[in-house]
């Protein structure tokens, strides 16, 4: 089953898909127009950096040098705070004086149960479902300090439109396709992740309790898909959905 969150009459409401792109509202009525979508979750969004081989392979030599000295031993995590959360179809303002901006096509793993100190074998029991995420970032030139300036800008974490039930997806076999202005621009696959979804849930839940509605972004690939004002960027995962957003310049948003 799929569900999404929209704004109707200034209230957050749930919708499910009908045939031919139509939507069914939570009160049983079909929705006539395309709605304003919200992110499908409202919890904490945790991202995992340095979990994609395309990136790890490139940095292998750097890891042995200052300031890193050695490769990371545990998952490298970050938070996408609430000001970054956005829905399908939202317009995202990009800074024009802060260097290049990159898309980050990714899976979103949505937690369904309070999860503390789970084993890898128990981990998937805590998953409610999956969604599509675009983890937008400025260039990742260093991994030494938390990337707040690069990753925590307003609207830099669109998610959705759909939250798909856990049973519909195998998180060990997910293909993520990113499109720039309608053209397929990048494909990445869960087999290229260093740690799998169950391994990550187990590792995170060892030291912090995950709550229903929290979301984990297991990996983003090497930043190659630059996005600019005027572009339309889409991330698609077969079986989950297609997340599309339009980009404008920050100055024109103010």
């Amino acid at each position, binding site marked *: 089953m799929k569900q999404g969150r929209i704004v109707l009459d200034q209230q957050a409401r749930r919708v499910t898909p009908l045939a031919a792109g139509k939507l069914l509202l939570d009160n049983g009525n079909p929705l006539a127009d395309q709605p304003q979508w919200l992110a499908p979750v409202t919890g904490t969004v945790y991202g995992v950096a340095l979990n994609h081989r395309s990136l790890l392979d490139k940095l292998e030599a750097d890891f042995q040098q200052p300031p*890193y000295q050695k490769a990371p031993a*545990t998952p490298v995590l970050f*938070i996408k*705070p*609430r*000001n970054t959360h956005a829905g399908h179809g939202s317009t995202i303002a990009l800074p024009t004086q802060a260097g290049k901006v990159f898309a980050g096509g990714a899976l979103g793993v949505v937690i369904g149960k309070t999860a503390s100190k789970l084993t890898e074998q128990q981990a998937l029991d805590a998953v409610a479902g999956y969604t599509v995420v675009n983890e937008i970032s400025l260039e990742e030139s260093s991994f030494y300090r938390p*990337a707040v300036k690069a990753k*925590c800008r307003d609207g830099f974490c669109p998610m959705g439109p759909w939250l798909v039930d856990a049973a519909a997806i195998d998180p060990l076999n997910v293909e993520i396709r990113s499109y720039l202005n309608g053209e397929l621009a990048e494909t990445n696959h869960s087999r290229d992740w260093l740690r799998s979804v169950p391994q990550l849930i187990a590792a995170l839940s060892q*030291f*912090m309790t995950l709550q229903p509605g929290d979301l984990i972004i297991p990996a983003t690939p090497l930043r190659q898909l630059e996005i600019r004002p005027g572009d339309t960027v889409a991330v698609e995962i077969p079986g989950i959905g297609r997340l599309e957003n339009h980009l404008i310049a920050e100055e024109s948003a103010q």
Partner: protein
Amino acid sequence: MPRRAPNETRPHPPARRGSYPRSSGDDDHSVQLADGRRLAEDAVEWLPPAEGTVFALGLNYADHAAELAFKAPTEPLVFLKSPATLTGHRQVSVRPDNLLYMHYECELVVIIGKTAKNVSREQAMDYVAGYSVCNDYAVRDYLENYYRPNLRVKNRDTLTPIGPWWVDRDDVADPANLTLRTWVNGELRQQGNTSDMVFDIPYLIEYLSSFMTLSPGDMIATGTPEGLADVVPGDEVIVEVEGVGRLVNHIVSEAQYAARQVQSA
């Protein structure tokens, strides 16, 4: 002097200004609820004073940076915390087993009161609603040189007590001149003054709002001065910011914490 403590019991509604009980103002440490009831400080379950995004500063006191053998940064070293790590006044914090070094950090917390984007430092204080106190514990054994300090060091369950009070901005005459103190088992271990911040409150609001929007309820933990020390199960740790509050916390072991969880379930 309006001071607010969280509601009495969980589950609680989102913190809203004006919805909290107040200090009775007496020296007996009692709190007064919105309905007039007066309760002892230890008869309520204390929660964090607000529920927004939590920012924390590393190396924001020159003396502390020197203590850690770091040059003070040229740009604020900011990291984020999630609700998972937050807890309230008079709660416990868990020291993981088999550690060499876990330390407290006494910090002044700034609570944002208005939506802030591209705010200049001259206007920054208009966006402050109030202040609180936090103890930003860190497990140094887990430090790695990636997004340092990472979540495993700084975002562990129970390791960020915040509170007890939300003190209105206008009740603190000069936030840039407040004494910070930490006591472990009654012994003064850390002392500093907010005048020694590398990046002061107006600068931090200008900096963060230059690239992201701050919202009411967001909190900025502004960093800690020198005087860190290891804490172990059984320790009582009190962090205090002059005129803002005195936050009490006890360290427990993993086994003690698990036993408490079973008991309260």
